[in-house]
């Protein structure tokens, strides 16, 4: 493997790991259920995306496969993350989860 590929893989892994960690910190730090929904749909998407990209580079550099399956995993993730966030939000509104003080507007009655 060329040193350039090694640097790229390490950088992407660190970057992805950092973003996933920040997403997890967000779960602990954000004040209520609805704000916590924002962590998994964004920070983590990029985190996993970066880790997938490093996997693609690794396997191409090893001369095995071009790694279309990793790209498919990322696509599936991008397709399912909004749906799960939407279902979580709907369920929370249905059972009337309280919003944090200072929130503008109100969730709908279900």
């Amino acid at each position: 493997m060329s040193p350039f590929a090694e640097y790229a893989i390490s950088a992407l892994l660190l970057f992805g790991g950092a973003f996933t960690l920040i997403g997890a910190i967000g779960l602990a730090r954000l004040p209520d259920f609805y704000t916590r929904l924002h962590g998994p749909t964004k920070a983590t998407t990029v985190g996993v995306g970066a880790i997938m990209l490093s996997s693609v580079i690794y396997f191409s550099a090893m001369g095995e496969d071009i790694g279309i399956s990793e790209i498919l995993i990322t696509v599936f993730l991008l397709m399912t993350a909004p749906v799960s966030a939407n279902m979580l939000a709907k369920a929370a509104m249905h059972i009337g989860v309280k919003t944090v003080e200072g929130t503008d507007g109100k969730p709908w009655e279900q």
Partner: protein
Amino acid sequence: MFDRLSFPQPWLSLILFATWQILSDGVSGGSVVLGLILAWVIPQITHGFWPERPAFVKTWRMPVYILRVLKDIIVASFSVAWLILSPRTPRPAFISYPLTLDHPLAISILASTISLTPGTVSADVSDDNQTLLIHALDAGSDQEVIDAIYNSYEKPLMEMFK
């Protein structure tokens, strides 16, 4: 009877078949057979959930839209990451977004886009498909968020679905 043996959505079947070939380790007799079965069964089962055939005229605009959304996802993650790490408390808000789009598929694409991009998650759509409820993590004002979504996502989608 022949309904049951047909492919009601040829494109969906083709995509499913191709996806299965990529996911399995190399194309073989087994993967082709299983791919054909999946390409036949899944559209049959999910047939009832699909909206009427969309007036998807300008498909060639889709790649531009996807690239813009990918760029926004990366920008959005940085701003959300920064918000999580900064000591300031965010100002969350529920915003009712008035929809101009009317096709169900277009609305679901818009809702997914909103969930993936800058500080917003779409929470619900009203029963008459007129309003989308959005939760914003850190909203300046409602109008700002509505204008930003309208200009960057809803307008291009309206052009695609006309």
